[in-house]
Structures are given as structure tokens and as C-alpha cells.
């Protein structure tokens, strides 16, 4: 039996937003969230009972993020590239020692694997279904991604802050 969609938004909305932000900069990430949940609302009555809702939503978000990236590429100009690292974009970012940007700087497969497994909470088998390839490949991509993020922390000046906040 299906739960009211309101409960789905309340329960999974914040996680799916984090996944979108791990994949895209704002405001594209927020747009991807909106498109994901509108598409999910449309398809919800036909979703199989007992389906893994989180995996279903992350799969939709995956496709919406790819759409956003394609649109970005079409829009892209040298000026836009500069703006990406400039202060105009920073205004959209939460204070996080640049983690979001570091995540999005990872190679696509690693970024997706980290976003879907570590942020979205999906098992590697589900991640593999979404991004293609084997479960092992998904696991490796996620590990490589996390390792790269740790390196980013070590190299960045914010490393001390990050360590303090963890202890």
C-alpha cells in the first residue's frame, strides 16, 4: 500500500537534495531536485509496491542531473567557466570548506558513486545499476572518490578546521 507522497517528500527530500548538490552547483542542483520530485509525483501511483523509494528517487535525480549538465554544456561560454570558480557562485554555496566544489571536481564516475552511495545511502549494487558497470567498479569509484576528497582536505588550508570539527 502506498504512503501519501507528502511523507515521501518529508522523508527523502533532504537526502535527494544533498545528492543533487553533490552532482551540481546551485541553482542547478535545486532545479534538479524540483524536476526529480515532480517526475516522481507523476509516476508514483505506478511505482511497484515495496520498491526501494530512495533508489528510485536517486535514479530519477541521476537522469535529471545529466539533463542539467547537458543544458549547462550548451550554455557554457568561457565567461561562465570563470564565473564557476568566482565569488558569484560562492554566494550560493553553504559554508563547508569547499567540500561541495571538491566533490563536483571529481571525475564523473567517482562523483556519482560517492553521491549515490555515501550521500544517498544506496548499496553499491544499486549504484552500479544507476551508473552502469559492475558492483566492484562502483565500490572502487566511491573509494577513489573519498580518497581524493581526503587528499583535498589535507591539501587545503582548512584541514585543521575540518579535523577539529570531527574530533
Amino acid at each position, binding site marked *: *500500500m*502506498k*504512503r*501519501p*507522497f*507528502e511523507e515521501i*517528500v518529508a522523508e527523502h*527530500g*533532504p*537526502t535527494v*537534495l*544533498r545528492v543533487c*548538490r*553533490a552532482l551540481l552547483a546551485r541553482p542547478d542542483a*535545486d532545479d534538479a*531536485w*524540483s524536476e526529480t*520530485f*515532480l517526475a516522481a*509525483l*507523476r509516476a*508514483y*501511483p505506478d511505482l511497484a509496491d515495496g520498491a526501494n523509494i*530512495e533508489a528510485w528517487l536517486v535514479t530519477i535525480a541521476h537522469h535529471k542531473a545529466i539533463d542539467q549538465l547537458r543544458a549547462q554544456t550548451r550554455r557554457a561560454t568561457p565567461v561562465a567557466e570563470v564565473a564557476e570558480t568566482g565569488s558569484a557562485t560562492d554566494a550560493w554555496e*553553504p*559554508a*563547508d*570548506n569547499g*567540500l*561541495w566544489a571538491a*566533490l563536483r571536481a571529481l571525475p564523473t564516475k567517482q562523483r556519482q558513486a*560517492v553521491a549515490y552511495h*555515501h*550521500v*544517498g*545511502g544506496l548499496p553499491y549494487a544499486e549504484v552500479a545499476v544507476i551508473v552502469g558497470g559492475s558492483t566492484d567498479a562502483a565500490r572502487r569509484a566511491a573509494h577513489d572518490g*573519498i580518497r581524493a*576528497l*581526503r587528499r583535498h*582536505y589535507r591539501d587545503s588550508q582548512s584541514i585543521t578546521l*575540518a579535523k577539529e*570539527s*570531527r574530533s
Partner: protein
Amino acid sequence: MINSMDPVLAPIAAEDTETMTRLRDQLVAAAEADRLLDVAYRTIDSPVGTLLLAATDQGLVRVAYQSEDHDHVLQTLSKLISPRILRAPRRLDQAARQLGEYFTGERRDFVLPLDFRLAHGFRRAVLAHLVLINYGQTETYAEVAAATGHSRAVRAVGTACATNPMPVIVPCHRVLRSDGKLGGYVGGLETKATLLSLEAGRSIGADTLSR
């Protein structure tokens, strides 16, 4: 899920409630525009407790007392109507305003589109008669049975009242036993007494509610 997140990702775990609220509101608006909002709901505070109001695009479809368990009621609507349910107060603005006026004694009649899809057959016929009983008036279960052309179906009238999907708006509280006793009520007998007192012109205060 968040608990298992690698420490390096800790900043991501932070909630962004403000953005979530904005995105949720946008989702409701987009769903309404795309005709995907099959059931909209909200709650209102009233002298008889928090009421759940739910509407389809046809009109008000459900009013529920707290004692009915609002989560359970929404789950039932998901099953009987559609799981495309969102908290979307705007569709219920009119109903909320008119109920507010009713509880302050300023309103005697509700002028709202009603969707009776949750009631079928004889029960729906009973509800159709109930809306004809005027403010401040009462009928007996037997009189309602007779009015629907089934004078022996007194017990079935009781069931129809007990399963009324829109109490207060469809005034099943105006149906009493032949001996003058209150009978039953979906929101409890105290609530029934409160509504009847209100309609008799007695103000409803804390004393009425605590009876």
C-alpha cells in the same frame, strides 16, 4: 543513512531547512499547475480540536477529527483516492475560512464544492439528506430513514452518520435518537454537544469543551 556517511562528507549532512521549505512550496505549485495534486490537505485549529481538511480537484472530500488519527486518515485517502497527496493549504483556504466563521457563530451555511466520492449507495443518500437539515435544527435517526424512503433502515442511518467523511460540513451532528438522547458521533459525544450548543446560540467556551 546520514549516520553512515564518511566523516570527510560531514558538511553535507547539514540540513538546509530553508531551501527545503522553498523547494517543497514550489513542488506544490508545480503539481497543482500540472494537475498532479490529486489530494490537497491542511489542518486547522478549532474549538473541537485540530481538524484535518482534504480536497480533490472536485471539492472538499474529507474532514477528520484528531481522534480519527490524521496519519491514518491520509493513508486511507492514499489507498481510496490517490497517493498523490501533498500538504497544500491554498486549495482549502475557503473551507478553512468558512469553518472558522462557523465556529465563531458568524456562519450558518457552508457554500463549498463537496466531493462525495468516499460515500456510496444508501450512505451517500443519507448524507444528501443531512445537508438539508438546517442550522440549529435536529432530526431523529428514524426521521432521516423515512426521508430517504427506507423507514426501517434506522440502524443503517446510524452507520451512515458514523462513517460521514465530512463531519461538521455535512451535519450528522444534527441527528439525534428518538428519545432525545444524543446517539453517537464520529468526533465523540462531547463534540456533538458542543456543536449543538453552538447552533443553539450558546457560546462555546472552555466549560462546554471540558464537559
